[in-house]
């Protein structure tokens, strides 16, 4: 029974990781662009959710949608104000631009929200589900379902719709896409909006489970990079799978070996896997 609880806990944690990483892998897949500010997007999503609850008294449906929508807009703004310009620059400028953006967002948040740790007030998402003696916190459960839904939705969007085809076309060859009458700017702005929006959604859901402060992005973003790399660059399904695997490994090693060894186990396996399969679980070589 205890083992079952450990594994379920790991899966739910993995779902949170997957949810967190979906937007990161999208930008990576669409634009070969590393967004170091992804953790800060999630952090903003958490604060937007909090403000929605405090000011509008919205329930979970309201604050998750509000955070997703606001971050979608933020993503589009970031694309036009920053990313579009540095795309023409050298690789290093691209990397450092989002790094700078991350610091800007983090310290602006410190300025506005102060460094205090905050939590979302009790919501209808605060309960626990007891399934025959196995406990599942509702926020984690919903986050897991949302991660699965989001992963599926992004997958369908990219592979089954015309907008997805156009997004992929721009990713494949910007110039050729333009010759086909696709406006790359609009497509890439949408990609940024989707990525940031999914980060916002992730943030709003995570806010129901975790206390946080403006530096929360740092805590999760390293795991997110590992999830994305393990899953395969740009593979949304891969990120889902990788998130779950990492969650389970962390839970098992923390329980049987001790909490301080869980990261050693995860990263050792991660490095070992990259040795044999550098493209990740579901990436294309």
């Amino acid at each position, binding site marked *: 029974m*205890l083992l079952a*609880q*450990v594994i379920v*806990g790991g899966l739910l*944690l993995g779902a*949170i990781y997957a949810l967190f990483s979906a937007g990161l892998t999208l930008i990576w897949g669409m634009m070969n662009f590393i967004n170091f500010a992804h953790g800060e997007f999630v952090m903003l999503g958490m604060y937007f959710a909090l403000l929605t609850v405090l000011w509008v008294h919205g329930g979970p449906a309201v604050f998750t949608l509000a955070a997703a929508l606001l971050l979608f807009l933020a993503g589009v703004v970031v694309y036009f104000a920053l990313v579009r310009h540095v795309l023409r620059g050298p690789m290093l400028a691209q990397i450092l631009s989002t790094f700078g953006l991350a610091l800007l967002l983090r*310290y602006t948040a*410190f300025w506005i929200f*102060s*460094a*205090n*740790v*905050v*939590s979302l007030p*009790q919501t209808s998402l605060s309960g*626990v589900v*007891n399934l025959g003696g196995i*406990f599942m*916190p509702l926020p984690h459960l919903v986050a897991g379902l949302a991660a699965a839904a989001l992963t599926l939705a992004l997958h369908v969007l990219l592979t089954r719709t015309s907008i997805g085809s156009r997004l992929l076309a721009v990713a494949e060859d910007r110039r050729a896409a333009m010759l086909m009458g696709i406006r790359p700017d609009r497509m890439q702005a949408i990609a940024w909006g989707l990525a940031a929006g999914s980060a916002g959604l992730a943030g709003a859901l995570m806010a129901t*489970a*975790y*206390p*946080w*402060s*403006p*530096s929360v992005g*740092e*805590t*999760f973003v390293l*795991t997110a990079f590992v999830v994305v790399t393990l899953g395969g660059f740009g593979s949304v399904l891969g990120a889902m799978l990788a998130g779950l695997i990492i969650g389970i490994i*962390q*839970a098992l090693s*923390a*329980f049987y070996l*001790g*909490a*301080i060894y*869980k*990261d050693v186990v995860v990263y050792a396996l991660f490095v070992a896997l990259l040795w044999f399969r550098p493209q990740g679980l579901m990436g294309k070589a």
Partner: protein
Amino acid sequence: MTNHRVNRRSLLLTGAAAAASLATRVSPSLAADTVTVGVVEPLTGNAAAAGQAAKAALELAVDIINNPHPELGNLTLAAMAGLPNLGGAKLKLIFADHQGNPSLAQQLALRLITQDHVNALFGAYQSSCSFTATAVAERHGIPFMVGESAAANITGRGFKWVFRGTPIASDYARTYMRFVADMKKRGVKIDSIALVNENTDYGTSVADTVQEAAKKENVPVALRIPYSASTTDVSAQVLQLKEKNPDLVIFISYTADSILYIKTLRNLNYLPPMVLGDDSGFSDPSFIPAIADIGQGLMNRSAWAIGKPGSTTYKINEMYKAKTGRDLDDTSGRDMQSFFALADALNRAGSTDPEKIRVALTKTDLKPDQLMMGYEGVRFDQTGQNVLASTYLIQLKGKTYELVWPDNAATAKLDWPMKGWKQ
């Protein structure tokens, strides 16, 4: 951050001021008109909330010292304006943010000494940061007052320039064991305890000390769980506790992880008979609002008690509340108290000469009525540790902590076991 670089204009100004004072003989002595103290605290990063609270508390202490506050009774340096023995010189703080990073704390201490020419240093919350920053002060012969860090190894390295006003791990460990013994005498079943500690200097050294004290008192430690405070999930740790089922769990944790632990206890439906926090996270201003409805009856330690309306401590708390909108917490209170002890020594030294300040610190002898914390006094031994520091135990009732132990200081009844989320 202020830089005291000498340029032509400041040189001219100083010259003019010196000439003016010579000509008119207004200045009573050549004493400095400001005394600067460099403060290294985590103003951003994981422990930023505590760092910012400490900053507000120190600013309040400086306000109390620099301006006349006769309403605060015998509190050190409150009644008069400034430091009387230095011709009423004002205190000035220069803050530096080490972000919880020990090597940054070290660099900042160096910068404050060599570039800002501070007269004394103060800090640094995380024991790991105090550990590195104090070494710099020792090397440069500048007095360093450790405000609140509890790790044993900060003092006791043979340092001459490092002083610490707060009670330390061994004081706390002794208190916890006396508490366990007292509970057993009352017929409470405590067969074993568990220690859950974050794994930097602070958590490790406190847990080591408590474990040692428990061994000496024959209190079995069923389980010890070290973990990293920046963790995102503590389910495995809580399940380990559930498996061993100790009667008392002592958490030596910072803020976000403390909240996460209490929430996870609830999520996994495991309520130990009693949870005792070793201050820090449990005293963070954001802790109670986050867990009040699921953590009823959990305990914490504190040397700070707000006291009755009209008392000095009550007035200090009102001033702090007016400034920050929150009650003063124990950690920031211990900071303020250490700072008052430093200011007292600066005043008695009557000079900004580092050696004179150091000697004054070694001769510190503050009585309980001069203090804002529930210590028996402030007096430093040859390692620089305050030997008269002690602490109370408090319990969460509703949305505030009430002083419940020891009996002679208690203002409320101790409830055992804790209710948690079960009303």
